[in-house]
């Protein structure tokens, strides 16, 4: 184990994968000497050189599209899109190309690539640099969607994503980049599709991911003082989703709160609520609740942005509403 930040853990996952497999390479805007807009790729250019760590032009469509072409022809690209908000510039390459080429070619090819991109509010970056839009990706059959919440998960899921033979959206939360934690050294793989109980509890299940895990954990400590023992479940990957783990936890607690930073309407929380409604209704002793961002763009002024983000206080209030 080694102490490292979430950003360092992502980098360590990429570094070990690149050391182990010469077909893994990295491309994106400013990822080489500059080290990426958030410093996540710092040092990889020095270690692996210009053949394997490349700056691209500001051309999102060909960043993703060329990664798809390289993946089809035997490489394992890691492509970075600087903010998830920029995915609109390359959605066809993900949505119609990466996700569908295997299927529409009758299973005769595969697209093993990782598309890394940061998400999330909390930095005063306003409406076009702060969003969480994971349900854009979970709605597309053919790709997987990964959202780590801790440094160890960040590394293990990165290594799993690179080894996976499918296109994987690997979404990094900007507010977590500097968060430290213990991370296993060397090869470390967290399997995709395996949830993690971040806090055991018996009174209510809170399903959250990415930054919301931290907020839920903090809220749980406050709730414990009030005699409410919350279980915090982190799916870690939304596709594939470990629905058995969610159902098992709800069977234990009888109550479900889903917390996410996406806006509420058509957010992934609706999917989880529907699954539990369909397959775990009998476990519930209260209606399912969702705590999500409101259906608005993300404002700039800190007071407005804070009102947008689901907070620890809002989580506490939502949980208290069950009791």
């Amino acid at each position, binding site marked *: 184990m080694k102490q490292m930040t979430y950003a360092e853990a992502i980098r360590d996952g990429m570094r070990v994968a690149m050391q182990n497999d010469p077909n893994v*390479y990295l491309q994106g805007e400013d990822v080489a000497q500059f080290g990426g807009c958030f410093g996540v790729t710092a040092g990889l250019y020095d270690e692996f050189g210009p*053949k394997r760590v*490349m700056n*691209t*032009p500001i*051309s999102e*469509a*060909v960043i*993703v*599209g*060329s*990664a*798809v*072409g*390289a*993946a*089809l*022809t*035997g*490489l394992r*690209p890691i492509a970075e899109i600087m903010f998830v908000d920029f995915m609109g510039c390359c959605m*066809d*390459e993900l949505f*119609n*190309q990466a996700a569908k*080429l*295997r*299927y*529409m*070619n*009758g*299973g*005769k*090819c*595969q*697209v*093993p690539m990782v598309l890394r991109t940061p998400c999330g509010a909390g930095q005063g970056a306003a409406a076009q640099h702060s969003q969480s839009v994971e349900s854009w990706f979970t709605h597309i*059959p*053919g790709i*997987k969607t990964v959202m780590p919440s801790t440094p160890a998960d960040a590394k293990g899921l990165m290594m799993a994503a690179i080894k996976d*033979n*499918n296109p994987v959206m690997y979404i990094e939360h900007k507010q977590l980049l500097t968060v430290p934690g213990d991370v296993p050294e060397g090869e470390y793989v967290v399997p995709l599709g395996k949830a993690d109980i971040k806090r055991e509890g018996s009174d209510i299940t809170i399903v959250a991911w990415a930054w919301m895990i931290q907020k839920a954990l903090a809220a749980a400590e406050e709730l414990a003082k009030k005699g409410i023992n919350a279980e915090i479940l982190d799916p870690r990957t939304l596709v594939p989703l470990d629905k058995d783990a969610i159902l098992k936890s709800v069977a234990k607690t009888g109550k479900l709160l889903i917390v996410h930073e996406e806006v509420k309407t058509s957010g992934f929380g609706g999917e989880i609520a529907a699954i539990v409604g369909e397959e775990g209704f009998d476990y519930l002793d209260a209606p399912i609740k969702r705590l999500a961002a409101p259906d608005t763009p993300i404002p700039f002024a800190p007071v407005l942005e804070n009102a947008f983000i689901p907070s620890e206080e809002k989580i506490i209030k939502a949980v208290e509403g069950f009791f």
Partner: protein
Amino acid sequence: MDLNKEQLLDMYKKMVTIRAFESKAVELFAAGQIPGFVHLYLGEEAIATGVCASLEKKDYIASTHRGHGHLIAKGGDIKIMMAELFGRTTGYCKGKGGSMHIADVDLGILGANGIVGAGMPLATGAAFTCKYKDNGAVAVAFFGDGASDRATFHESLNLASTWKLPIVFLCENNGWAISNSQENHQNVTDISDRASGYGIPGVSVDGNDVVAVYEAAAAAIDRARKGDGPTLVECKSWRWRGHFEGDPGAYKDPKDQEEWLAKDPIPRLEKNLLKLKYATQAELDDIKAAADAELEAAIKFAESSPVPDPSELFTDVYAD
């Protein structure tokens, strides 16, 4: 770059096979035997044929929605193609792609793409693999005049030029972006002029002259293979049919259509072959008859092939 008898006759065979395949597809679609959307390559046979004559099996192509000709030219088997058009399990994509996505990935085809202009980034990535692995292979991205207006054209040419990738951007200018004529969708006559904006060579040739296409493509492919980077090659031609089968093409001036029909690339090659005494008219007729017979066998194969089991819906979504 003189083409010998064998090469020219091979091109002739490919062109008449494409012609026979597409002509049959017209009938089969009209008869309701082919479901979905069908975009035909009639009149443009010289382009795929002239380009693929310089490609090896290890080389990659990105095809388009109008992709039957590319597949035949790259070595596709018309029986397996016809089965795909019929949506049968014996087709190239097990019936999951159809006409619009027909491709043999084992022949280095990165898919026939239903999104106009989407093949260029894919081929750019394949060219990156060729350079990364230093395997001597190249990629060719086929696309139309309409696709040359898309952002993917700009982004791909810019990146491929900056990284000096082994790729040829092969524009099949058939005069039409669906119903919109070239002069109505871009303010250039020669699309190859756009190459200068990316610091790469650009050349325009008569796309109905298979020898001219061959020479331009061969030079560009050779340049790519030598590590000198991309070339933009524009082949000027004409789409005989509507954008898709069912589109009567009422937007075309009949005089233009007539003029272009007279420039049919197949009789032009025939004339050349006869002049060079590489074949007699009887031998050329035999080649055509053989292509027709092969087509009939392909249709029989397709018709007698099984349709997919409904459970196939769920396979091939993810790789293991």
